[in-house]
């Protein structure tokens, strides 16, 4: 590990994002706009907004960071810059950690803005502490980023990488418990949901929403962190220094 290379990479990714204000706007504005949409969709049944608002707040960053990182990493592979970095004294983990720092920071801004809109302007209620929702949103963003980095190795084109969203993220969203309690699904799907990282992200958010700050919440958070580390490790394995 070399913190200098990781920080250099983080600043480089920031600089790239800064050159692309439209993407930044989309990253910040779209989730906020979707929360507004939700609020007025369920204007006739306000309990629903409170029930799904908190989990969605924490899951948006997962989805956006998954997509943004898988495309950024794919570009790094196809443009030849990855090959160049791999010929330099750059540790693979430094590269991944650099990405992690940059996108976690973006996710933090995203989570704070969306939380402000939801709690401050749209009167979203949560029994648990709001700051913990923001912390979970950032953790989920880093998890989404790590999975995006890993899965980008399996895409050859940006078209394919974009398709990983419906292929890989949508099933997790459907099965994580957000739409239907998991124990009401077919048994096979319930078992499958245990294998999906987003399930634990949703569990944690739901517990914070209900102010259940307990050992199970700590367990879910520990799992999110462990899965992030695992995905980063797998991502490092897919970064081959030598290719055939």
């Amino acid at each position: 590990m070399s913190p200098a290379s990781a920080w250099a990479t983080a600043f480089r990714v920031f600089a790239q994002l800064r050159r692309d204000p439209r993407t930044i706007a989309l990253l910040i504005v779209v989730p906020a706009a979707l929360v507004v949409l939700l609020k007025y969709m369920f204007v006739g049944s306000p309990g629903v907004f409170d029930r799904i608002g908190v989990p969605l707040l924490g899951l948006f960053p997962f989805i956006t960071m998954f997509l943004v990182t898988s495309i950024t990493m794919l570009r790094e592979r196809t443009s030849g810059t990855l090959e160049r970095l791999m010929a330099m004294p750059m540790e693979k983990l430094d590269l991944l950690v650099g990405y992690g720092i940059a996108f976690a920071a973006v996710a933090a801004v995203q989570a704070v803005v969306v939380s402000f809109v939801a709690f401050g302007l749209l009167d979203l209620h949560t029994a648990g502490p709001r700051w913990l929702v923001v912390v979970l949103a950032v953790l989920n963003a880093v998890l989404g980023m790590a999975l995006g980095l890993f899965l980008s190795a399996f895409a050859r084109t940006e078209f394919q990488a974009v398709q990983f969203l419906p292929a890989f993220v949508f099933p997790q969203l459907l099965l994580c418990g957000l739409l239907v309690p998991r124990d009401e699904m077919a048994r096979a799907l319930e078992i499958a949901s245990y294998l999906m990282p987003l399930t634990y992200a949703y569990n944690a958010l739901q517990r914070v929403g209900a102010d259940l700050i307990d050992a199970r919440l700590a367990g879910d958070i520990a799992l999110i962190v462990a899965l992030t580390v695992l995905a980063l490790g797998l991502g490092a394995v897919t970064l081959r220094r030598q290719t055939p």
Partner: protein
Amino acid sequence: MPDEPAVVSQGLHVIRGGRPALNDLSATVKAGVVTGLLGPSGSGKSTLIRSIVGVQVITSGALRVFGLEAGSSALRSRIGYMTQAPSVYSDLSVRENLVYFARVLRAPGERVDELIEAVGLEQERDRIVDRLSGGQRARVSLATALVGRPELLVLDEPTVGLDPVLRRDLWQMFERLASEGTTLLVSSHVMDEARHCAEIMLLYDGRLLATGTPDDLLRRTGAEDLEDGFLRLVEEARA
């Protein structure tokens, strides 16, 4: 030892993309001079270059750079590599690109401005690479390869698509770097470029056809120019 070659390959075989790309290649690259790696497209030039810089899986045979096995981590800070396509970040400015690579290579900050001048991009310093011409982009990529003051500079077709003035300037720069002690391996599919090189290696179909100075090649083949000499060697090899 000044006579120690920078690169030595012995019986090098490389399969790239399922096809044999290098076949029993034994060759040396002399230290401190410009060696031209010549041959038509698909002859294995890029594969040899990728093998030397350590990003290519070698099937069999030996390849040593400065006495170390190619791909050793200790070599990564000693080799500068310019890929065939300009592999720099197209959404960053010239300066931002070089600053990033300088940080990765632990090069001092002054090096960045020094290099921008060396490749003649002072006017483009803060322009986004995407907005530059092909030749300017190639020069950003070249500057990136020079950031770490490498002992061995490996350049994959650095002059392709550049105008004659720029090509001449680059070759002058390569010769200057060599006179300062850097070893250069420069690939090209334009045989005429060989005249700038102290040594040449001719590759054809993954095999080494000939090595030596450009004059050696002309004498051996009795050809008028290097292109003609190369064609005669190819005919000889085919026969």
